[in-house]
């Protein structure tokens, strides 16, 4: 099993490198075959993985991770100077200071840096299948983009590098490693959002960068408090082992903040909305199907420790509000991709909420939503690209009578929206399980139930126009 899991990290990295040098025709074959291989590998891992697989890496890899952290932050600092972004600069200084301090106090020898369990395998399957489809779709989409042939290769290369980073994020046990991979996803979103290099793309890429860097600062602070409070190594497994300790609340809260930022929850939703300027495969890859799923993944990973804590109560109340506020905001949008972005924020809120409640049924609901939302949103986003490229349509109000000029496309969009709303599709099942469980929650835990109901019914309706 270990070589197969390692292949999920190495194959996309190798493909990413090869795509930069191979000719177009060979690159196309490589993208298709490697997408199929990665999907097959992740399916095999999911079926055959029993229990939890912990594994460590040689000592020198720890040093490499520390160096990579520093190099990454130096790059962020260079971006801050080049683009004159004080927010990126401030976040980079905070991260740099925090990292240097942590490197002094962290134990010299880490063990068991990686942890692969059923949740990781579940995420492998989602990441590799959905990202593979998006990579194949990108072959044509990016071919039609107005840019140099090297930049087209570069785009596909970043996609595969991103797949590798995502596979690493969901396998990390050590929080220092997790910080690096979390920040590498941030870097990927910065590069991909700013791909078109126009003024708006660069501005929105910088917004995505500094907002996600806040999440990185929260992870570093969580590592600090785990070590400061004497709970040993900063790992997810160690955190769960000390779940009942009172001093663990702060690290849990900080990691939840990182999750909420990555999941574009209020007040950090702006980066996801701005990301819609990127090429459509990027919107599908980073901002609907895979990257934002790090948010519910973190909460699910921490779920046994979070359950029934004040941190969980705050997360539930906040996401309850965001769920309705973002859904209402989606109604007021005309741009097709912005409608999808708002509905993503709303559904991510629901997934995080269900993961934070932490009962077996709500965890099932969260997983069902993660999978089906990933497939449906991927379908809709890729269709947004087809609408843009084939029919030259961007606004939903211009799609009047698309049924005549593009019956297949309108059929697919209709099924895509239905699959997010109606029975018997999985997203409906997930929402239905959520509502049933929240009903029980409101009966059993009156204060939390009242908070959720007030947030959902009152706050959402009244505040959403002001906030968005």
């Amino acid at each position, binding site marked *: 099993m270990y070589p197969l899991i390692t292949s999920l990290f190495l194959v996309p990295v190798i493909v990413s490198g090869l795509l930069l040098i191979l000719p177009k025709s060979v690159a196309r074959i490589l993208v298709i075959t490697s997408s199929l291989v990665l999907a097959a590998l992740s399916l095999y891992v999911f079926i055959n993985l029993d229990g939890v697989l912990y594994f460590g890496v040689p000592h020198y890899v720890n040093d490499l991770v520390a160096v990579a952290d520093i190099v990454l932050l130096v790059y962020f600092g260079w971006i801050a100077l080049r683009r004159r972004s004080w927010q990126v600069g401030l976040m980079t200084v905070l991260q740099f200071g925090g990292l240097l301090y942590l490197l002094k106090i962290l134990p010299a020898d880490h063990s068991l840096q990686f942890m692969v369990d059923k949740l990781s395998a579940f995420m492998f399957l989602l990441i590799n299948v959905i990202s593979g*489809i998006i990579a194949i779709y990108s072959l044509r989409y990016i071919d039609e983009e107005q840019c140099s042939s090297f930049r087209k290769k570069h785009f596909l290369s970043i996609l595969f590098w991103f797949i590798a980073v995502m596979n690493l994020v969901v396998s990390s046990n050590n929080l220092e490693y997790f910080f690096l991979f979390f920040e590498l996803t941030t870097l990927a979103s910065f590069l991909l959002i700013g791909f078109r290099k126009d003024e708006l793309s660069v501005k929105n890429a910088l917004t995505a960068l500094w907002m996600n860097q806040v999440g990185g600062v929260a992870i570093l602070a969580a590592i600090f408090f785990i070590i400061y409070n004497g709970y040993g190594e900063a790992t997810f497994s160690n955190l769960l082992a000390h779940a009942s300790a009172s001093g663990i609340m702060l690290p849990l809260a900080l990691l939840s903040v990182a999750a909420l930022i990555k999941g574009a929850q209020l007040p950090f939703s702006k980066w996801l909305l701005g990301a819609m300027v990127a090429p459509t495969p990027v919107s599908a890859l980073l901002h609907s199907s895979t990257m934002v799923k790090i948010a519910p993944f973190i909460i699910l990973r921490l779920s046994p420790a979070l359950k029934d804590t004040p941190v969980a109560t705050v997360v539930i109340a906040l996401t309850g509000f965001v769920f309705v506020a973002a859904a209402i905001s989606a109604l007021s949008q005309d741009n097709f991709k912005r409608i999808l972005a708002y509905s993503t924020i709303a559904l991510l809120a629901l997934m995080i909420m269900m993961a934070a409640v932490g009962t077996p049924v709500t965890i099932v609901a969260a997983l069902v939503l993660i999978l*089906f939302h990933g497939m449906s949103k991927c379908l809709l986003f890729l269709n947004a690209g087809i609408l843009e490229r084939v029919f030259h349509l961007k606004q939903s109000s211009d799609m009047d009578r698309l049924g*005549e000029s593009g019956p297949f496309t309108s059929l697919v969009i209709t099924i895509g929206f239905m699959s997010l709303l109606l029975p018997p599709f999985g997203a409906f099942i997930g929402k239905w399980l959520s509502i049933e469980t929240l009903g029980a929650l409101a009966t059993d835990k009156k204060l939390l139930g009242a908070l959720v109901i007030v947030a959902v019914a009152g706050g959402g309706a009244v505040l959403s126009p002001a906030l968005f």
Partner: protein
Amino acid sequence: MGLLIARTGDHDKIRFEKTGLVYAGTMYVLLGLIILSVLGLPLLLTGYFVPVTSQIAGMPVAVVMDGWNMHIGAMKLPMVPLLIALFLLPVTIITALFIRFKNVDRVKEYMCGEK
């Protein structure tokens, strides 16, 4: 969705557009995955979601079929309405796309030049 499937009546024959192999192929794969996952939902629940949940929650999650109802923990999922929905939804879309009504007013309301 209403706007999408609205028709003027100028084109009574349905002609599916050609978007190309890559675009159409990825759409077919995703549609296939969504439909397969709906059809195989009981299997997915028991073989995909429940093992993950059991490991996260640290306790087994019971998924039991009781006649036409599926019980997930304390929750009951009625399968009959879901199967009816699975049949009705495509019928609704196909009806909207293919069936044309004769001798009905198909003119859109006049909006004084405004869209």
